[in-house]
């Protein structure tokens, strides 16, 4: 009996990784594999097929902004646990794990910077921190980013990458929708623009709030942009889904985006907007 058990373990140790568990540096679309430095060099875009790998918030900020110009705001805002939420694990445990794994205090990084000399306010989300979900801290930081843009009289450039509201904060996370909407309204009342970049994925509560209120909205190729994701739509309605359901390309066709801009061209695109609005 015990021998059989050992055998199984040996088998498993040598079994090939299941097909859906690819190495993070392997392109899920074409299978090309890259070293870390190659991916970094290519802005985490597959040089073979153009697939956009996730890009971390700090890396994106470094790339968008003039060297040394970024200074972070409201970095000390952290989530707490208003409901003492416990699913399979306590929410506080998930939070500290996310902080350890990402080196970020929350799923959004806010700060001021210069882009080719243009002063801007930045708010960049990071999917690696609990799926970029928006709880009270993310809502507060995004709202403060709007306030700071108004205070400094500069445009706000925001990048979204989020699964939606953070369930662990219950109804308070839903309240971040009207909260961020009101913050963007104040920005618009001050006649300052919001330039929106939607990265994969931009869904649910984030799409249904500030992300949809950009003056100019662009998306990365292949990004999922949907209020309800394909799996839930399929399960609830049993409808047959179009091949490009919810993708940036479909959103462009239906008029929800101004453009799809591949990552390497985004900086130039944003600079053009900043010049036009300056």
């Amino acid at each position, binding site marked *: 009996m015990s021998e059989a058990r050992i055998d199984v373990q040996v088998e498993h140790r040598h079994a090939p990784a299941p097909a859906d568990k690819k190495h993070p540096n392997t392109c899920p679309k074409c299978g090309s594999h890259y070293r870390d430095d190659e991916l970094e060099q290519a802005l985490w875009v597959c040089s073979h097929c153009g697939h956009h790998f996730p890009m971390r918030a700090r890396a994106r900020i470094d790339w968008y902004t003039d060297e040394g110009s970024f200074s972070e705001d409201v970095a000390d*805002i952290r989530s*707490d646990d*208003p*409901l003492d*939420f*416990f*699913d*399979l694990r306590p929410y506080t445990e998930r939070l500290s794990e996310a902080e350890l794994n990402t080196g970020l205090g929350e799923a959004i990084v806010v700060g001021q910077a210069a882009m080719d000399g243009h002063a801007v306010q930045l708010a960049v989300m990071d999917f690696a921190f609990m799926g970029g979900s928006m*709880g*009270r*801290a993310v*809502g*507060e930081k995004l*709202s403060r980013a709007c306030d700071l843009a108004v205070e400094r009289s500069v445009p706000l450039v925001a990048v979204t990458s989020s699964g939606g*509201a953070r*369930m*662990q*904060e*219950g*109804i*308070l*996370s*839903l*309240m*971040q*929708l*009207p*909260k961020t*909407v*009101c*913050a*963007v*309204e*104040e920005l618009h009342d001050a006649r300052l623009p919001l330039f929106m970049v939607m990265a994969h994925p931009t869904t*649910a*509560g984030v*799409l*249904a*709030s*500030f*992300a*949809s*209120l950009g003056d100019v909205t662009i998306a990365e190729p292949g990004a999922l*942009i*949907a*209020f*309800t994701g394909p799996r*839930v*739509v399929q399960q*609830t*309605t049993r*409808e047959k*889904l*179009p091949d490009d*359901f*919810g993708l940036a390309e*479909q959103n462009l066709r*239906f*008029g*929800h985006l101004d453009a799809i801009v591949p990552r390497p061209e985004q900086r130039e695109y944003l600079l053009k907007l900043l010049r036009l609005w300056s």
Partner: protein
Amino acid sequence: MSTNDEEVNLRQRLSGLSRLPLLRGVRVSGEADRLEKQLERLKTDTTDEEIWESVELARHPERPYTLDYVARILDDWVELHGDRGRADDGALVTGVGRLDGRTIVLVGHQKGRDVKERLDRQFGMAYPEGYVKAMRVMEIAERFGFPVLSLVDTPGAYPGVAAEQHGQGGAIARSQAAMSRLTVPTVACIIGEGGSGGAVAIAVADRVLMQENAIYSVITPEGCAAILWRDAGEAKKAAAAFKPDARHCLELGVVDAIVAEPVGGAQTDHDQSARLLKGALVESLEELEDVPGDELRRRRRAKFRGMGVFA
């Protein structure tokens, strides 16, 4: 401490959180014993069982829906149809009517009673066209200075292919933005299910009320259970964890007051439920009517900006 002191204490504690009287409409009904019973219930902490009871009552098939209330509390109701672009969404009704002598604009989710009506109204789940229609009548309200009332009762916005293609997320965002711009008084009441984005889309109001057995949540208990517990059957556990009941929403400052229901739930007596709701709506409007429009908007935005601010 005497019972009376305790009651005063409790009222102060709860209204201190919301800065508004608790259990709206009770004054209208004038039934002191019910007030006492409700206060009694509020004194003890809500149990998981009670939370689940709210979920079931909020979804009760006999519960009054928006048009049941409209028929009982408004005079001269004129329903306005269509978004002037694509469709008329039956899941979200809009119109103009008179409430206690003043013309108001009303928007509200509408579920169906029988199978056919349920399908026609998509179980109260609106398409983007519904929210576009709501924004259209809000514009009418703003132009003519009519207050806006909204009655929220939806499991969520419709999760379908066409709804996505027509821009569900954007419609919900813009509907909230439209409400945050209004300079007329706005009062919302959650009268059943306040399901996620589809609910908050029409609930960015100066006063947000909630019926005693209504629920207001970021996701359905089943949806939350499916994601966090990987088992939709754990809905009860999920509901107990994210606490969508009225009492917790009041404590968290998400709603301003709770509207009383007849004993046993709103479904037991539609007329009585409507009287209580009407009293609460009128009372809320009276508080807002003398406030200048700019100030209303400023306070409304400040209120929602304050949701989830850290000490």
